[in-house]
């Protein structure tokens, strides 16, 4: 037997069950319309799952605290990167309040004009011969 801390088998199985359950939860919740809360709930569930994996499967709960600090630091720097970049991208133009000046580059790429319409299998549809599809073409 190893001298290191050995996680009990039961713990592993319970955590795995929780993870599978939470995966189901997150799929179910995605079908409920919560507006802007959807992304919040999804990330919350993902974070709970991630914490279970990190603390139990990756052993951070029982390890030297330095390992946890290292992991949290990585998340902190990720947070810094995202937040400060968004300070730029969300506030362009008139402090981001004017939709026209905020995303002036948000134009459709030119190559789309050359692409033929396709069916759901990706095969080009001939517009002139198939009249049934004309209604669907004009979204």
């Amino acid at each position, binding site marked *: 037997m190893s001298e*290191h801390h050995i996680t009990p088998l039961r713990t592993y199985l319970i955590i795995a069950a929780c993870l599978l359950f939470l*995966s189901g939860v997150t799929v179910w919740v995605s079908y409920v319309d919560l507006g802007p809360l959807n*992304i919040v709930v999804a*990330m919350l569930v993902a974070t709970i799952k991630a914490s279970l994996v990190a603390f139990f499967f990756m052993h951070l709960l029982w390890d030297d605290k330095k390992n946890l600090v*290292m992991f949290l630091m*990585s998340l902190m720097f990720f947070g810094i*990167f995202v937040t400060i970049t968004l300070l730029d991208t969300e506030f362009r133009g008139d402090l981001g309040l004017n939709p026209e000046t905020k995303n002036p580059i*948000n134009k459709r790429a030119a190559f789309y004009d050359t692409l033929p319409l396709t069916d759901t*299998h*990706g095969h080009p549809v001939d517009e002139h011969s198939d009249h049934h599809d004309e209604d669907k073409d004009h979204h």
Partner: protein
Amino acid sequence: MSHHNPDSPSHLKHYFYDVNQQYETSKFAMWAFILTEVLTFAGLFVAYIVYRSWYPDMFIDAHKLLDVNKGLTNTIVLITSSLTMALAIWAIQKNNRKLSVLMLVATFVFALAFLGIKYLEYSHKFEVGQLPGEFYSYMGPDAVHLNNPHIFFSIYFIMTGLHGLHVAIGMGLIAWLIYSTHKGNLTSEYYTPMEMIGIFWHLVDLIWIYLFPLFYLIG
């Protein structure tokens, strides 16, 4: 100043005082490596977040072109593989070599399944033209109104592609572990490589835990 004490285990390097210092140092360094992996994917997550904030409607509609069932199956597959990886370490800690190898093989098989399902997804997308960047050509009735959907698929392919590359690398490492454990090189006295590769494998699971809702379950 020699540690070449004949009672020292053969795996103890001469610049470490004892096996515990060596083990703790390896684990710590592995976590520092995990930091670098998180920062690598961080760049891609930033790209995702920025582009999703610029094209919110396109992201919601484009994601419907992904197959949630395959995504969920992959999530289940990866979580189970994380369990079997943890059990492989549990087994070797109890010096049960056969069980450890069995669990490692199971992990490998699950990883293969993950890549198999990804292959099915990718080949479907190639077929219908839902491709990154300038290669995008899918203009089906559910996509024709989208504004620059190639960006969604660019980010999808790069992120799941890089993740898939890590799954493949993990499989290679696990294969080496299977060989090493089977040969008896890893025991309850010394299983540090398995511990370290296990941490890597759990990270691969961790990243997918976020990729799944962000691509397959938007809105």
